[in-house]
């Protein structure tokens, strides 16, 4: 604790600057983490409003509220904003806050780059959102922007979309470099890689995925830019190009991208379950290997998004088998979490509730993923609401619930105050019900034959669409409880202790709540209670 007291006095000497410049010029990992998290929350609501617009239009058959052109812009922007604006920055925010504290470092390795990688984002997203007000409308070709719909047939605003994607890519790559540099260079003396908390491990692997695939995304949008403005024909069949090439390049980025959005979630859940089960994580080593296997496999499964594109039989079989294989390491992770709970001593605070819901609902998303892997059956599921149900199950009660769990878990550490537990539980139960009422019926809609991305539908799909819309509004408005709880927790609340939770383990809990401005100014002493294996 000696080092901690020393750190507190350091804070008094050079604490945060005052006013807006604190946030503009900050190089502090906590300030930047906070900026990332608040930005992501804002984008979560912007993307959420778009989702509710979509659901409101789909409440009834027929066109009621919006025209199909605008509907397509909403589905596109909802996807882009949730993926690049809500989920990814939230995990980068968590990484910024937690990685230095978990590995015993004073800050991130590259603090000035850290500032830059955040401040690119507001500009990138302002530019992307501004396309909605441009003549011809914003991007309307789906978040997967398949050529030639996104090139020859795109609205003029597509150029701004491409520029915005470039900026997000730069931001992500810099964030990833920073995470890797911090983890590899700034661990407390004596902390081996296999001592790191799993959240740190999953982020290390995620950061390598980001560095591997963000340039591929940059490449594919640049090829689009060339096709649109410089008369190249990468994706234009009339000029000898190949529209299917677009999909191969996009999904070579796109599939690792979906693991970028779920691996840190695995890390979060692997921190929370042992804490509230009061029992060490079962199979730490196998968790690390399983995460690595998932990351490696993610590079050789991309064409399962393209089973109907007309691949040769050998291609279909290869991608079917590799995709099925992913179920194995993913299963290992789920089994390990359950073995951790088994014969533990469990309590059910809000973070644990979200983590448990994550395990169940993410697994359901995994099951539908396994079904989708069966290529002949995928011909029936592909591009229907079954797929929409699948990826929302892994992203909303998957990624988003893990982010919520992380927020409740570490909020007392960040703010020094406990959040309101009753309100947290209410938020959880309404979200849990809302998510399932929204997305479960979508499985049925897809199986009954409703294609995705349509603004109007045949009458046999009416009932479940109505149910889904009710669920979506319940889920959406429940999130306001979180905001209220968050504001209350920042402003006031019961004082939190350093350990916060009875079963907490790891270096971040050795710091006071809230932690000093520079986390560990002197390397902490490690004992078996402070490392990931604990």
């Amino acid at each position, binding site marked *: 604790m000696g080092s901690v007291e020393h750190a507190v006095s350091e804070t008094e000497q050079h604490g945060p600057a005052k006013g807006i410049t604190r946030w503009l010029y900050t190089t502090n990992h906590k300030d930047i983490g906070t900026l990332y998290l608040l930005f992501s929350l804002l984008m979560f609501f912007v993307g959420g409003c778009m989702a509710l617009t979509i659901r409101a239009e789909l409440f*009834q058959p027929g066109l009621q509220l919006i025209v199909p*052109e605008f509907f397509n812009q909403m589905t596109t922007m909802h996807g882009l904003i949730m993926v690049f604006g809500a989920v990814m920055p939230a995990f980068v925010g968590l990484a910024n806050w937690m990685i230095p504290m978990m590995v015993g470092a004073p800050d991130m390795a590259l603090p000035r780059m850290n500032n830059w990688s955040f401040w690119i984002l507001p500009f990138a997203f302002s530019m992307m959102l501004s396309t909605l007000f441009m003549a011809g409308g914003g991007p309307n070709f789906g978040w997967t922007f398949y050529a*030639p719909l996104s090139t020859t047939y795109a609205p003029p605003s597509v150029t701004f979309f491409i520029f915005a994607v470039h900026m997000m890519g730069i931001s992500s790559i810099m964030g990833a470099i920073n995470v890797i540099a911090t983890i590899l260079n700034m661990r407390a003396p004596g902390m081996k890689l296999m001592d790191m908390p799993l959240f740190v491990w999953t982020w290390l692997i995620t950061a390598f995925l980001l560095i591997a695939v963000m340039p591929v995304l940059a490449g594919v949008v640049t090829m689009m830019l060339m096709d649109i403005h410089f008369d190249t024909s990468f994706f234009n069949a009339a000029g000898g190009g190949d*529209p299917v090439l677009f999909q191969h390049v996009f999904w070579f980025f796109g599939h690792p991208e979906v693991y970028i959005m779920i691996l840190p979630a695995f890390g979060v859940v692997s921190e929370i379950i042992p804490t509230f089960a009061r029992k*060490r994580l079962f199979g730490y080593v196998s968790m690390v290997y399983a995460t690595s296997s998932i990351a490696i496999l993610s590079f050789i499964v991309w064409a399962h998004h393209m089973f109907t594109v007309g691949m040769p039989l050998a291609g279909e079989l290869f991608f079917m088998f590799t995709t099925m294989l992913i179920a194995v390491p993913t299963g290992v992770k789920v089994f390990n979490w359950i073995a951790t709970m088994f014969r533990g001593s469990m309590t059910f605070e809000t973070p644990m509730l979200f983590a448990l819901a994550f395990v169940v609902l993410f697994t*359901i998303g995994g099951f539908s993923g396994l079904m989708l892997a069966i290529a002949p059956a995928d011909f029936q599921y592909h591009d229907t609401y079954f797929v929409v149900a699948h990826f929302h199950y892994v992203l909303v009660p998957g990624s988003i619930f893990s982010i919520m769990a992380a927020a409740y878990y570490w909020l007392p550490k960040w703010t020094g105050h406990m959040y309101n537990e009753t309100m947290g539980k209410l938020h959880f139960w309404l979200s849990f019900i809302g998510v399932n009422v929204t997305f479960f019926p979508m499985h049925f809609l897809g199986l009954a034959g409703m294609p995705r991305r349509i603004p109007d539908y045949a009458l046999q799909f*009416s009932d479940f669409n109505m149910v889904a819309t009710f669920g979506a509004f319940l889920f959406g408005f429940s999130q306001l409880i979180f905001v209220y709880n968050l504001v209350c927790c920042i402003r006031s609340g019961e004082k939190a202790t350093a350990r916060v939770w009875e079963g907490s383990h790891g270096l971040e809990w050795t710091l006071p709540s809230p932690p000093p401005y520079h986390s560990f100014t002197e390397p902490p002493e490690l004992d078996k209670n402070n490392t990931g294996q604990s």
Partner: protein
Amino acid sequence: MRCNRRALLYAGFFYAPLASADWQLNLIEGATEISRSVYSLHMVIFYICVAIAVVVFGVMFWSIFWHRKSRGAKAAHFHESTWIEILWTIIPVAILVSMAVPASTTLIQMYDKNNAELDIQITGYQWKWRYQYLDQDIDFFSNLTTPADQISNEAIKGDNYLLEVDRPMVIPAGKKVRFLITSNDVIHSWWVPALAVKKDAVPGFINEAWTLVDQPGIYRGQCAELCGKDHGFMPIVVEVKSAEDYQLWLQQQGALKLAQQQSAERDWSVEELMSRGEEVYKQSCLACHQAEGQGIPNVFPALAGSPLMNETVDEHIDVVLNGRSGTAMQAFAEQLSASDLAAVITYERGAWGNQGGAVSVQQIKEMLKE
């Protein structure tokens, strides 16, 4: 009267869909051997998932119930076991292998495109399908027929709302039919659930698929790949006929073609052209250029007041016949008959205040020859 009808519609707002309640939960078995084996694959993998879920969630809920602190549970200290990790790696692999075998078999069957008795080329257009019977000299477009007032909730929706077309694809029962699928503009996807056929229509590629339907019937589907603003409005209808009925249909198609040729031969008055032109416009042009020819700014150009519609007649005809490369403007020379082309061009030059003057069927025929 109209007001009343509206009130009635709004009154039925909540009840209308419930009245036609379907609540369909599962995939359909479909009408072909392939679709039935897809269905059984779907059910097998589903039951495997359910079985795994029961075991995994069972243990989880057991722990949540019995191993909770409030029941006085004390945490055990075990935290790893190599043999159990190996076990729960090997068992899933075994399950997956047992699943991969039937899946591969069905897939190989689906990829056997030999010995088809009939070839139909399917071409996706923004937002309609074209069916060309390669050996029969039959070639037509299939458009949505759901009226606009049903879509805008001003009329009661029909039973096949959004799933009805003017000319369905017709195929004989009991014969293997091969589909050659491609696209004229963006990527579409031709999907009929009852046939378990879903294949992307990609410009520059020809994809193959096939079906063999045992029983006559009508099967409906939709475009499955986002293809622009009217993606939700390009349905597919396949009518499977018995051998005799199919022959009859073939003869009708010959007669229809003859009638079309004759209509191009006769003289058309300007009034006739204008009224026919309005129908053709609604069918083929309205989706982009809009009801009043106003277009959508920066996306689809306006026709009302356009110099193309008011002056340069040859250029106007050229654009309609051959399209504009690099834009969404399609070539209509193959889509419409000479008389329909003359009608729609005349309509565009005479409607919404345009003063371009009529064109004759003869003019179009000469341009088509070039």
